[in-house]
């Protein structure tokens, strides 16, 4: 059974309360239609529910989320997956700024582009490794302060554009960023990152993500696997050591 909720003209508090009530009542699959920027969808949900969201998902989609799967048939605004713990977010359109801030686990797949400050301070812990795959390009400050997890930018739709903006990986001290294509201009990268061609050793991390992305959005997985990638990793796990007199 699926519950459908029409979100037209509905305040976000009411909408989220309805979702929570349905989930508390045992519903595991919900369809939200006519969503038009309502905030906080999926926030704080900890059950393994599925939400199909039609329209534009508002700010802080999936913030603090732990478990659910959200599929957005449209764009998402800012703050997707803020401090997300686990679960899966699939966005068929593009997403705004600050996606995956402080994300600790789960996966976000975006078919289109993402805005500024994506993946800031992502971190991993034990078996939790957050992953973000972007089909288009990303804005400035991608992976700033990144402490763990994996960020992939495919730049599939406008290849003449650089895949990332400036200051990518500034202050990065853990995790890895993969950019499709031969080489990104060095002026795009933060001082704390080391760029190198991705090799065989990266395949166990990269290929499952490419496969997932391809299956989810109906692309050729084999084709994606054949592409060249560049890997960005931190030059040091202690970028800010040695600054103090004790």
């Amino acid at each position, binding site marked *: 059974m699926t519950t459908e909720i029409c979100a037209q003209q509905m305040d976000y*508090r009411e909408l*989220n309360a309805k979702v*929570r009530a349905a989930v508390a009542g045992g519903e595991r699959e919900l369809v939200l239609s006519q969503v038009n920027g309502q*905030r*906080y969808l999926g*926030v*704080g949900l*900890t059950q393994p529910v599925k939400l199909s969201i039609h329209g534009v998902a508002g*700010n*802080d989609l999936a*913030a*603090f*989320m*732990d478990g659910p799967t959200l599929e957005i048939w449209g764009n998402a605004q*800012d*703050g997707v997956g*803020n*401090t997300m*713990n686990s679960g899966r977010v699939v966005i068929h359109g593009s997403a705004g700024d*600050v996606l995956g*801030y*402080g994300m*600790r686990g789960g996966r976000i797949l975006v078919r289109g582009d993402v805005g500024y*400050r994506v993946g*800031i*301070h992502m*971190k*991993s*812990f*034990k078996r*939790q490794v957050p992953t973000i795959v972007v089909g288009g390009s990303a804005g400035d*400050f991608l992976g*700033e*302060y990144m*402490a*763990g997890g994996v960020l992939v930018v495919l730049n599939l739709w406008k290849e003449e554009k650089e895949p990332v903006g400036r200051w990518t990986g500034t*202050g990065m*001290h*853990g995790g890895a960023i993969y950019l499709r294509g031969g080489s990104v201009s060095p002026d795009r990268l933060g001082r704390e990152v080391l760029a190198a061609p991705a090799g065989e050793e990266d395949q166990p991390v990269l290929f499952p993500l490419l496969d997932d992305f391809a299956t989810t959005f109906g692309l050729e997985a084999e084709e994606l696997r054949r592409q060249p990638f560049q890997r960005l990793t931190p030059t040091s*796990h*202690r*970028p*800010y*050591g*040695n*600054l*103090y*007199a*004790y």
Partner: protein
Amino acid sequence: MTSLVLPEFLHRVDHQRCRRCKRCVMSCGFGALQFLERVVADHAKCVGCHRCATFCPEGAITIERNPTALRYNAHWSEEHRKAIWRQAESGGMLLSAMGNDKPYPSYFDHLLLDACQVTNPSIDPLREPMELRTYLGSKPERLEFGAGPDGKPRLTVELAPQVQLETPLVFSAMSFGSISLNAQKALAMAAEKCGITMNTGEGGLHKDLYPYSRHVVIQVASGRFGVSPEYLQQGAAVEIKIGQGAKPGIGGHLPGEKVPHEISETRMVPVGTDCLSPAPHHDIYSIEDLAQLIGALKEATRYEKPVGVKIAAVHNVAAIASGIVRAGADFIFLDGFRGGTGAAPTVIRDHVGLPIELAVAAVDDRLRREGIRNRASLVVAGGIRSSADVAKAVALGADVCAIGTAALVAMGCHLCQKCYTGNCSWGIATQRSELVRRLEPDVAAERLVNLVRAWSLELKEILGALGLNAIESLRGSRERLRAVGLDQTTLDILGVKPAGR
């Protein structure tokens, strides 16, 4: 490089009285003492924490300030010269801990409380009921009543969630990482006993503290360490940390060597990684962004807990506070420039921020003028040393005072200001198990409970003398304060008359 800095303290042992028990050698977390047939001190390592002297069974130890005098110079003070030497030797920023120790004026010490004489008689708190209880949370604009099903009057206004406090005190945020788990346990136990709250700081909540979670305020800071859905469900209230009085505008940095197993579990980062808390939250660049995070946290906690915001008192604090209230915060934690820290660049600690007395007065004033003072409680901190400071802060507009340094001092801290080294001999600001073990949570909790009880008793005396029977009646009652030796502008900001008028 040879250091040009002479030792700050001289450690003296009366070898006549010393019975060679070596207790002092084991006491010292800083490795300043050795036993080579007799106790030998490396004066340069002594930080003056007094652990050895306190526990010497013979009272054979004295710690002196090194009397070796540098040539006097009012401009180039000894401190400036020593700082330059240390920087010339290291090339690093100087670090400090605890609060600003510079001789800026303390406005509390220029304020005097009123008391009743003849008319409007005072109240004897030993015989009459005296209400110290107060509530942290947003209050309604007005109360409305209707008839309940039984015909009796009932409140019809929906109240926002509140945290009940039995006395207008809470413990300030001190993270597991900056202080030991035993110190946090003591704070949690004492908070429960006293009916108040402690605060996790940005370090997550250790599982051992879950039983106390009704007395724990959980913090969400820029690094989001340990912030999981489970964490958000714990806790009596949520506090978004924007800033702290000791280091306004500065992020936090727990170096990887201070992230052993337990801390890694609680912060949810791998063992040995640096915990960087960026200076800003990168999802908050405006009041609207702050409103969004407040909203997200309220959604995530089902509107069941107050969500507040902690800021450092800085120059435009009143306007900032107004924005925070309008962003939907249920309380503001206002931290003055004397607020403590586990580690801060000395230059920031000593030269940035505002005195809390002026900040609380300015904020209370602004919120009242805008008609939104009821929407948020004001928690005031940053150098609260006594119940008198509490009473004065409340009269200036605080709902509640928070104590961090005072709580640590109650547990044994001697303000040696070396917390950032992780060697605290008192078992407080350290993760070294042999040092942590010496702070027994039960004993430390008892000391804290005693302190809170003592201050509460004193507050009741103060209220009684003022002819008041509830702490909430004193809030913002600046008419009950007079100032000595302050200029007119300061009086205007404080909203206080000069003594004698």
